[in-house]
């Protein structure tokens, strides 16, 4: 895996295939936690952290346990969600002991991350990207770690953009029925239209 490929993955996940604007993943926290900038940043950081670790955990599980024993179709979904749930619980415990300040900043977002579709989404996506016709590509572990990290950064970018717009929208005179989530969706539509401009920036294989 050379530098060009790594760069393509990073740009692809942050801009071209942004999880929120191009793939419709993680819309529940995107709509629920972007009313304030602080919660948007906290959730974004927690997602980056968990997504990177989840990519690092699920790829070896698939590559060395499920695939060699022919269990990949039957146990993929169930084992991934259990690995992610255990991982999140573990992170919560470690963080509480090792770094209470960081735990205070993003601790409340950790439990809801387990059932967040971005994390399982990136785990499944790693398998789709780094497996060709049932054979693993070389550098899959590094690739999926980078893919998980940059997908998290892309998600955080979307959260921060939305939070900064919505904080100003509080003051605006919006028609009553559109207040709250409806206008947030329309704003997201405009943002995603802007992100369409990135498509074709790199050739996705």
């Amino acid at each position, binding site marked *: 895996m050379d530098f060009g490929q790594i760069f393509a993955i990073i740009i692809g996940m942050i801009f071209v295939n942004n999880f929120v*604007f*191009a*793939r*419709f*993943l*993680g*819309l*529940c926290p995107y*709509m629920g936690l972007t009313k304030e900038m602080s919660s948007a940043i906290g959730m974004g950081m927690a997602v980056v952290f968990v997504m990177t670790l989840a990519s690092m955990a699920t790829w070896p599980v698939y590559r060395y346990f499920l695939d060699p024993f022919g269990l990949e*179709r*039957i*146990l*993929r*979904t*169930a084992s*991934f*969600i*259990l690995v992610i*749930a255990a991982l999140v619980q573990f992170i919560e415990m470690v963080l509480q002991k090792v770094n209470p300040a960081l735990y205070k900043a993003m601790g409340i977002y950790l439990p809801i991350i*387990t*059932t*967040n*579709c971005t*994390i*399982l*989404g990136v785990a*499944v*996506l790693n398998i*789709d990207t780094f497996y060709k016709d049932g054979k693993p590509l070389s550098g899959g572990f590094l690739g999926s770690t980078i893919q998980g990290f940059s997908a998290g950064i892309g998600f955080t970018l979307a959260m921060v953009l939305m939070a900064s717009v919505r904080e100003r929208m509080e003051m605006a005179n919006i*028609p*009553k*029925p*559109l207040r*709250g*989530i*409806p*206008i*947030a*969706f*329309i704003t*997201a*539509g*405009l943002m*995603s*239209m802007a992100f*369409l401009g990135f498509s074709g920036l790199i050739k996705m294989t």
Partner: protein
Amino acid sequence: MSNWQTFKTGIFKNNPVFIVNLGLCPTLATSTSLRDAIGMGMAATFVLVGSNVIVSAIRRAVPHKVRIPCYIVVIATFVTIVELFLGAYQPDLYNALGIFLPLIVVNCIVLYRAEVFASKNGMASSLFDGFGMGLGFTCAVLLLAFIREGLGKGTLMGYPVIPGFSPTGIMVLPPGGFMTMGLLLGFFSWRKLRTKEHK
């Protein structure tokens, strides 16, 4: 509440997508064509009904502290059944739904119904609740897909409807999905506000 009322609440009064605002990701992602929408709706309904019944059956045996992991395992089992079934009999639909098929596991609607309804009620009413919520979700996806496919491709179920209509491609792209959803949510909250004023 009778079973019929439980069933009806899921479709109209407590519609999971338009009223409770859950399960937004699969709603937007699979509403680019009516065919995908029907597939997604049926898959989610099957998982909802199955998991609701099993969760309701084991609700007294599961310790309170580990209930969420237990529910997730039950849900993941049903999702795997759907995945294997569609992969074997409907490979086109399986490929079209792609990543959103395994993601039914983390669809908030399924866990929400397990936690709020099935873990407190009997098996029969949980069955009807699952059907109602599943149909409510299916109706929401179908409504969105009807608008997006109709305007974005000028077709319904793949058949052209209005001759000479030039489609607006943006409706099947992500921005069209977000905007349609925003306007529909606005419409439903307008209706809610209006009924409140009339009272």
